[in-house]
């Protein structure tokens, strides 16, 4: 890994220069929430944000997109893929790690062209963070991004300790060679100190040892009924989850009834229709099954790989205040 230092006074110039790589998106405060929005200058950003409501997955698996158009008379399907270069600035380690999990689904096997293209067209600039009472990323080891970014900025008192994570990131650092400096031993000490302090700031813990077995053993437990009674089945947890990636497709027809488009939009496993097949059979007919399925799905992307990064969003934005960590404690029989 290559390391450089970005002094505080050069920060806005650095952000400005990123515009040559595409539209720059950063965390902006909107009302009482935070959101990744296109920014004109660095001052618009609130880099001390705890988490955005909608995770940066929205740039790659968009909430709604046209995947192709069709024309029955001409007899053809035509791919609809809008390509635009973007820079996502200020992503936290949990969100970077979440994208790596998403890549396993959307790139590793039968690559999804839309997702993959957008991933390739994006530059990821990470930014260090401080946990609040909802963060349990430390338990999952996702509170640090070892890769999955082009550049990562660790905030120090007098600037940023910069990690270069890719060739693209290296090129950006070279372009900005006048703005960055070599790291000195004091910077390294400051970085170590900052990381040490940050590790101590965590208050919430999720015990992941044997978590998948605990979920399997609690399959018939009353826990699911207890929380299903509280759950509104609104799907907010799916929308805000950085690793939730279910989608549905729908065909829209033009007025001539011959041509139209197929849209893909995010779906939610908490909605009644998720397990419903034509003919009326529903494989997850009640909220109990749907809630249990969500927790089991978060517990396993594949064997030995959790599908959660501990960002805390599902707890924070649940209108019924269902606490993800608390549910897991009940699953273990600790509460």
């Amino acid at each position: 890994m290559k390391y450089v230092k970005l002094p505080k006074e050069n920060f806005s110039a650095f952000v400005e220069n990123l515009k040559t790589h595409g539209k720059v998106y950063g965390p902006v405060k909107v009302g009482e929430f935070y959101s990744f929005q296109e920014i004109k200058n660095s001052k618009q950003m609130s880099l001390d944000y705890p988490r955005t409501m909608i995770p940066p997955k929205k740039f790659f698996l968009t909430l709604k997109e046209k995947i192709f158009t069709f024309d029955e008379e001409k007899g053809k399907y035509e791919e609809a893929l809008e390509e635009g270069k973007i820079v996502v600035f200020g992503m936290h380690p949990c969100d970077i790690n979440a994208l790596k999990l998403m890549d396993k689904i959307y790139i590793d096997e039968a690559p999804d062209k839309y997702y993959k293209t957008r991933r390739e067209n994006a530059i990821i600039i990470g930014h260090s963070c401080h946990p609040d009472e909802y963060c349990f990323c430390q338990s999952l080891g996702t509170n640090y991004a070892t890769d999955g970014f082009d550049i990562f900025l660790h905030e120090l008192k007098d600037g940023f300790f910069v990690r270069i994570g890719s060739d693209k990131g290296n090129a950006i650092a070279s372009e900005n060679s006048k703005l960055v400096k070599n790291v000195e031993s004091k910077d390294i000490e400051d970085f170590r100190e900052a990381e040490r302090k940050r590790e101590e700031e965590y208050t919430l813990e999720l015990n992941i040892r044997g978590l998948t077995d605990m979920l399997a053993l609690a399959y018939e437990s009353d826990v699911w009924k207890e929380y299903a009674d509280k759950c509104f089945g609104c799907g907010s947890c799916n929308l805000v989850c950085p690793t939730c990636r279910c989608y549905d497709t729908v065909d829209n027809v033009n007025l001539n009834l011959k041509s139209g488009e197929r849209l893909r939009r995010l779906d939610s496993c908490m909605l009644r229709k998720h397990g419903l097949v034509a003919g009326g059979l529903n494989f997850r007919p009640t909220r109990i099954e749907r809630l249990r399925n969500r927790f089991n799905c978060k517990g396993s992307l594949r064997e030995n790989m959790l599908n959660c990064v501990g960002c805390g969003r599902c707890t924070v934005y649940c209108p019924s205040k269902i606490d993800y960590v608390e549910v897991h404690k009940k699953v273990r029989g600790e509460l």
Partner: protein
Amino acid sequence: MENVLLPNLAKIVKNEKMTAIERFLQAEVVDKKFAEIFDYNPGQFIEVSIMGVGEAPISICSIRTKKGSIDLCVRNVGRVTNAIHHLNVGSLVGLRGPYGNGFPMEEMEGSSLLLVAGGLGVAPLRSVLQYALKNRAKYKDITVFYGIRTYDTMLFRDEFYNLLAEGDKLGCKFYLSYEDAKDAKCLSLEAEHSDRCMSGVVTKLFERIKMSPKDTYAIICGPPIMYRFVVQELTKRNLPPEKIYMTLERRMKCGIGKCGHCIIGDGTSIKYVCKDGPVFTYWDALHAKGMI
């Protein structure tokens, strides 16, 4: 880069009524290059797109007989299947696939096959049967149990009647069960072939055969309720769980393990029916929750 979500165009060449709610369709892919490589195994399925209506997973009901051609047996149960029923010969549909693992036909070589189908479940098993009959020397006994409700709901009537009447000559023992004990046409079938046809649910047919659990594979497809009872009968006859294959139905929107609708199992064993299945063994079902 290949776009896995973009369907390939195919032309409907046959759309025939089979029963009140099922039709038989044959489609041929338009692109000649694609037709060359387009092939599928018994038990796989295909995503059929109707422009402006949507897409649905349909199991393939035959082995490939002609380059670029595919046979489907479709029940009218929803929006897409209803649209499929109303397709004219010559109309265009979109196909993606084939998807899914299919039945392990090679692994089962050298053994006897017992196919148990209920209702529409006979569609994917028909391709297994065709494959096994085409490669007849590779398998020992081939036995088929087909359960129907009434004569009118029977699929591939001529074909299966043939098997019922002279199946032994064609290389398989074909048994038929019907649920409606008052169905006149079924009764006359039974009168004709009393050794191969009886009233009752499909599991009743087990009374008629002797099974050697050592070298038999069972292959099941039918409505979800059927699996438990058939598995019970097979287990009673000492067939080990890993030799019981079944193919499952779920909402398989994408077919490639991405859209998340067909997920089953618990934290220790999440499975995608579309990608890891739709063919699973009873052993899998014992270890992944919510399968049957």
